[in-house]
């Protein structure tokens, strides 16, 4: 099933309406006009457009990321508060990926960097290997499992 | 009626202000330029949170727009400086 949803105009319309805080017909008309014009203007800048396929998987991924953000906040907080006894063991690690879609990779970069304790440090386009920087690197296999199973597999389903 | 929320607002303001102090110390002391840019970014986010907390305390919606503007300018400034550190110029030909 390939249903194409125009994401950008809908997002802009929702943003316009919530920024104005009203659902009056005039605001809706203005928002539709604004969203259409901006979409046309931006189309020349970004020739590759994103078509997310599975919105149910995206909602699941959102909650998975929310849980992970809370968990890694607690982990990073305990590392910071215990830093006088033990400085964390920082390090880089490499993860080979299967995801190739540029939008999927962009969302993966955002998820990884938004979780405290890990920052996206680079990606090699030819070998498709991701470099991560981890605040407290102790168990590399656990990080590989987290990235590949919790984030990469849903993203491959969403962006196909 | 109830004084729970004002005290929570005072507490959060105190926490975020101390956090801004920490970021300022790192901004002034940071050994490398990237430390200073990171501290400036943190300072902007914390300033936005102070404005939002004040908005909660005064029960006014005006503070929301200021917070949005602070977040916007903080992002543009910090990204421009990080890009400068990375490449030596901001907008490449």
């Amino acid at each position, binding site marked *: 099933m390939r249903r194409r949803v125009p994401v950008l105009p809908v997002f802009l319309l929702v943003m316009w309406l919530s920024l104005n805080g009203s659902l009056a017909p005039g605001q809706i008309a203005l928002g539709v006009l604004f969203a259409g014009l901006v979409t046309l203007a931006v189309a020349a800048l970004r020739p590759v457009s994103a078509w997310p396929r599975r919105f149910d998987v995206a909602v699941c991924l959102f909650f998975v990321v929310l849980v992970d953000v809370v968990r890694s906040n607690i982990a*990073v907080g305990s590392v910071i508060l215990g830093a006088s006894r033990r400085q964390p063991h*920082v390090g880089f690690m490499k993860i080979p990926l299967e995801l190739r879609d540029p939008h999927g990779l962009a969302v993966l970069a955002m998820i990884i960097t938004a979780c405290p304790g890990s920052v996206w440090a680079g990606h090699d386009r030819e070998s498709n290997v991701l470099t991560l920087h981890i605040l407290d690197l102790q168990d590399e296999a656990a990080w590989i499992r987290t990235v590949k199973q919790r984030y990469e597999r849903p993203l491959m389903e969403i962006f196909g | *009626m109830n004084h729970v929320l004002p005290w929570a607002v005072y507490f959060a303001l105190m926490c975020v202000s101390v956090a801004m102090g920490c970021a300022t110390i790192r901004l002034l002391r940071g050994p490398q330029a990237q430390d200073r840019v990171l501290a400036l970014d943190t300072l902007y986010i914390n300033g936005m949170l102070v404005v939002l907390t004040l908005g909660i305390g005064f029960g006014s919606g005006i503070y929301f727009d200021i917070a949005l503007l602070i977040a916007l300018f903080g992002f543009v400034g910090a990204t421009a400086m990080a890009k400068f550190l990375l490449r030596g110029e901001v907008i490449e030909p």
Partner: protein
Amino acid sequence: MNAINVPLWAALPAAALLVIGGLLTLVGSLGLLRLHDFHARIHAPTMGSTLGAGCILLASILVSSALAQRPVVHEVLIAVFVVLTSPVTAMLLMRASIYRRRG
């Protein structure tokens, strides 16, 4: 302060969220001082910009909805904006730091 007029059902969760968000932001910025290496320090402010900002924004949504007696959700825009932009800065800074240490 106008916050006294907020009804209790909104004031209690908002107060808890404010306290949690303030503490998270404080711990995150404290990490800027307590950690010794830039590569460790870059992880600390992420706490403030994800969960700290999220808690305070949720408290703001609760209070302004209770005061206006209708759902006011435009604070979600700030959350979306911060979530979209703070990783960009962190990634650029990380790459800049790697580049400057190598060169």
